[in-house]
C-alpha cells in the first residue's frame, strides 16, 4: 500500500518542480532557449526558472564549473529547500568535458572514486537521502579517465599531450612548413623606427622579419619613457593600448638567447590607423614579487592583486612549469569548495562612514550576471557610493589549452570563447594563422565564412538585445528574438550540422561546400527579418521606462575612451541593430556571385593540403 503512496508522491513532485538555474556558459544559453516558445519548458511541469534557492527544489547546473565559482554552486545547493535535486547539464558540468584545464572542476555530482592515475573527479554535491549515491564514473566501464580516450592505458603520454617544459622529441623538425609571410614597412613606420632610435638609442631595437605589423624590442628600463613618448609626442601618436600580454620564454630551445619573460604591448594609432607591437624582455625576474597568471609585478601599480584566479590560488597558471590539465593537479572536492571561498565584499569597496553603509554582492549568481561577474557595491540608503567588480568566475584558460593543442585541434575551443557568436570566433584566429603561414583562401570559402560569421553575429545580437532589454526590465523581447534566433540556428545547422559551436571553419577554408537547400532557408529568413526588426523597435523605442534607463547613462568622454582602450560596441553605442542588415545583404549578394562562378564542387572550397575528410558530419 505504501508503494502506491510513493508513486503518488513522486508523480506529484515530478509535475511541480521549481527549477533554479545556475547558468555558467554555452549550456545556459540552451537552457534559456528551453524557456522560450519553441521548446516551452512548461511542458515538463516547470513553468519558470527561479533565480533564488529559497524558492527552488531542482538545481540545474549548466555550463563549465570553475574552481572559483564552485563554492558558490555548493552554497546555493545547500540553501535550497528539502527535498532537492540537481541536474548537471552538459559535458563540462558532468566531467569537465573538453576543458581538462587547471581552472575547471572536473565534474560535479560525482562520488569520489579512488583511482591509481589521474583522478578526474570530483566535486560532489550530494546531500541528504534523495537521489543516487552510486559512483557514476567507473573506470573502463562507464568512462575512460585517460584524456586521450579508451584503450591508450599502456602507452606513455607524449607528443602534443605533453606540454612544456616536459615537451621533448618533437617531430616538427622533420615536417615541411610554409615560409612565414613578410610585408614591407610603410614609410611612416620606417620614420617612427628611426625617430625612436634617435630618441632612445640602443634601448629600441627593430625586430625582423615583419610578418603583420611593425615590432620593436624595448629595453625594460626605458619602457615607461617610450610608452609615454608614443602616446603623447610621436607622429603618429599611439593613443590606445589594445592589448598587454606576456610570454614565458622558459620552454625555448635556445634558452640562452631569450630573457625569462617577454612583455608584449599592442598599440593602436587613431591618426594613421596603424598598429605597433612592443616587446620588452624582462630580466632579474625571480627577485620580483610573484603575481597573477604569469606573476609579473608592475612598479607603481596601485592595486596589484589576483584578478582571474581565486585569491588563495598557488602559483601562476600561464607559466610553463604550472600544470595545464586539471587531471595533473590534486582533485577538487567538496572540501575545497567549502574552504576556498571568494574574497569578502569588504575587501573590495570602501565605506566612508563605516557602519552605516551596507555592502551588497550582486552576482556571481544573479539574474543579470548569471555566474560570470560579481559586483560589490557599498550602499548609503538607495545611493551607490562605491563599486568594484570581481571577475574570473568564468575562466576557461584557452591560452593554456592553446599551448597543447595543434593548430587544427584548437578550432573547437574558439567558438566557446564568445559562446553566442559561434563560428564568428573562428575567423580572427584563422586569419592570424593564415597570415602567419601565408595561406591563400579561395574566394568562395571566404564568402561562406563571412556569411556564417554574419549569421552568428545576428544571432548573437538577438540574444544581446533580449537580455539587455530583460536587464532593464522588459521581458517580452526575449520571446520575440529567440524566435528568429532559432531560424538562424536552423540555417546554421543545415549548413554545418552544428548549432552553437559548429567548429566548421578550417585553416585555409571551410570543412565542406554549402549543402543543397541552404539558399531557400536563408532567403526565407532574409525576407521576414526586416519586419521583425521593426517589431523589436516598436517594442522598446517609445517605452518611457526603457528610455529613462538607457539614455544618458554611463557616459564616457572621447579622451577617456581612448585612454581606457575601449573597443567594440561601447565605442559606438548609438549603432542600431538594423545596421547589420546591409552587411549580411552584401555577404549574400557576393555569395550568389561566387556560387554562380564556381562549378559547385566541394573541393573548390578547400585549399591544397586540407583533406575533405575533415568534414563535420
Amino acid at each position, binding site marked *: 500500500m505504501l508503494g502506491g503512496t510513493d508513486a503518488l508522491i513522486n508523480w506529484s513532485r515530478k509535475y511541480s518542480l521549481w527549477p533554479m538555474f545556475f547558468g555558467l556558459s554555452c549550456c545556459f544559453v540552451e537552457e534559456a532557449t528551453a524557456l522560450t516558445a519553441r521548446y516551452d519548458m512548461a511542458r515538463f511541469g516547470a513553468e519558470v526558472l527561479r533565480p*533564488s534557492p529559497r524558492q527552488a527544489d531542482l538545481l540545474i547546473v549548466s555550463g563549465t564549473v570553475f574552481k572559483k565559482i564552485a*563554492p*558558490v554552486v555548493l552554497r546555493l545547493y*545547500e*540553501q535550497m529547500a528539502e527535498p532537492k535535486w540537481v541536474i548537471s547539464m552538459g559535458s563540462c558540468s558532468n566531467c569537465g568535458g573538453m576543458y581538462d584545464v587547471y581552472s575547471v572542476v572536473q565534474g560535479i555530482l560525482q562520488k569520489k572514486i579512488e583511482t591509481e592515475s589521474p583522478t578526474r573527479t570530483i566535486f560532489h554535491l550530494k546531500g541528504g537521502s534523495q537521489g543516487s549515491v552510486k559512483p557514476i564514473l567507473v573506470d573502463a566501464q562507464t568512462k575512460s579517465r585517460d584524456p586521450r580516450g579508451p584503450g591508450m592505458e599502456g602507452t606513455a603520454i607524449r607528443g602534443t599531450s605533453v606540454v612544456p617544459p616536459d615537451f621533448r622529441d618533437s617531430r616538427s623538425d622533420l615536417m615541411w612548413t610554409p615560409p612565414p609571410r613578410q610585408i614591407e614597412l610603410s614609410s611612416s613606420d620606417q620614420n617612427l623606427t628611426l625617430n625612436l632610435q634617435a630618441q632612445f638609442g640602443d634601448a629600441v631595437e627593430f625586430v625582423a622579419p615583419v610578418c603583420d605589423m611593425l615590432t620593436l624590442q624595448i629595453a625594460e628600463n626605458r619602457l615607461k619613457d617610450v610608452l609615454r613618448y608614443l602616446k603623447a609626442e610621436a607622429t603618429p601618436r599611439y593613443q590606445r593600448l589594445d592589448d598587454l600580454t606576456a610570454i614565458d620564454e622558459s620552454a625555448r630551445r635556445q634558452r640562452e638567447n631569450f630573457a625569462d619573460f617577454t612583455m608584449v604591448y599592442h598599440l593602436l594609432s587613431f591618426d594613421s590607423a596603424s598598429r605597433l607591437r612592443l616587446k620588452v624582455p624582462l630580466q632579474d625576474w625571480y627577485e620580483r614579487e610573484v603575481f597573477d597568471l604569469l606573476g609579473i609585478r608592475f612598479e607603481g601599480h596601485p592595486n596589484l592583486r589576483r584578478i582571474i584566479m581565486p585569491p588563495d590560488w598557488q602559483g601562476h597558471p600561464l607559466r610553463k612549469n604550472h600544470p595545464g590539465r586539471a587531471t595533473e593537479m590534486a582533485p577538487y572536492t567538496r572540501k575545497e569548495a567549502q574552504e576556498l571561498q571568494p574574497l569578502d565584499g*569588504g575587501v573590495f569597496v570602501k565605506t566612508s562612514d563605516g557602519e*552605516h553603509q551596507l555592502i551588497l554582492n*550582486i552576482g556571481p*549568481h544573479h539574474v543579470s550576471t548569471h555566474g560570470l561577474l560579481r559586483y560589490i557595491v557599498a550602499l548609503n540608503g*538607495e545611493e551607490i557610493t562605491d563599486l568594484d567588480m570581481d571577475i574570473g568566475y568564468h575562466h576557461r584558460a584557452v591560452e593554456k589549452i592553446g599551448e597543447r593543442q595543434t593548430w587544427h585541434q584548437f578550432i573547437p575551443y574558439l567558438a566557446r570563447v564568445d559562446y553566442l557568436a559561434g563560428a564568428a570566433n573562428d575567423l580572427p584566429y584563422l586569419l592570424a594563422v593564415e597570415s602567419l603561414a601565408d595561406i591563400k583562401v579561395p574566394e568562395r570559402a571566404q564568402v561562406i565564412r563571412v556569411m556564417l560569421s554574419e549569421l552568428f553575429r545576428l544571432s548573437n545580437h538577438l540574444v544581446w538585445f533580449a537580455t539587455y532589454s530583460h536587464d532593464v526590465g522588459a521581458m517580452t523581447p526575449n520571446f520575440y528574438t529567440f524566435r528568429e534566433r532559432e531560424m538562424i540556428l536552423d540555417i546554421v545547422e543545415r549548413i554545418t550540422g552544428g548549432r552553437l559551436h559548429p567548429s566548421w571553419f578550417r585553416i585555409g577554408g571551410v570543412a565542406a561546400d554549402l549543402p543543397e537547400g541552404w539558399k531557400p532557408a536563408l532567403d526565407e529568413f532574409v525576407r521576414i527579418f526586416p519586419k521583425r526588426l521593426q517589431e523589436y523597435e516598436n517594442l522598446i523605442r517609445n517605452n518611457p521606462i526603457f528610455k529613462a534607463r538607457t539614455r544618458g547613462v554611463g557616459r564616457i568622454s572621447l579622451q577617456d575612451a581612448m585612454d581606457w582602450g575601449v573597443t567594440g560596441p561601447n565605442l559606438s553605442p548609438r549603432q542600431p541593430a538594423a545596421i547589420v542588415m546591409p552587411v549580411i545583404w552584401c555577404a549574400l549578394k557576393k555569395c550568389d556571385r561566387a556560387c554562380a562562378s564556381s562549378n559547385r564542387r566541394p573541393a573548390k572550397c578547400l585549399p591544397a593540403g586540407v583533406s575533405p575528410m575533415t568534414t563535420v558530419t
Partner: protein
Amino acid sequence: MQPMGSTGILSPWESGVFSLAIFVVLILIFVASQLIVAVWLGEKKKTVEKLRPYESGIIPTGTARLRYPVPFYLVAIFFLIFDVEGAFIFTWAIARGELGWSGWLQISFFIVLLLLGLFYIWRKGGLDWGPITQKD
C-alpha cells in the same frame, strides 16, 4: 422607487450567523490541516549554509541592521500631513453654498498657509529624492 424591505430576501439573523460560523470553522480546520501536514511531512535540515542569507552565493559582509537613510520616509510623512488637510477642504467643498463668502475666505487662508508650508519644505530640500547628481 420604493426602498425594498429585507424581509423574505435575506436570511434571518440567527440562521445566517450559524452558517457563517460553520464556514469559518471549516476554513480554519482546512488551513490548519494543510499547515500541519506540510510541517509533518516536510523535511527540515537547519544547516549553517541554509540559515545564511542569500546574497548571490557569496557570504554577506557585515550586518543588515544598519541606521538606514530612507528619504521615502520623509516624503511619506509629508504626504500624510497634506493628505489629512485635504479632508478639511473636501468638507468645505460640500457645504460651500451654505458657508458663503466668509467660508471661502477662511478656506483660502487655510490653503495659502498649506502652500507656504509646502514651499518651505521644498526650499529646505525635503522633497529631494535620491543622490544629488552633478550636471555634467
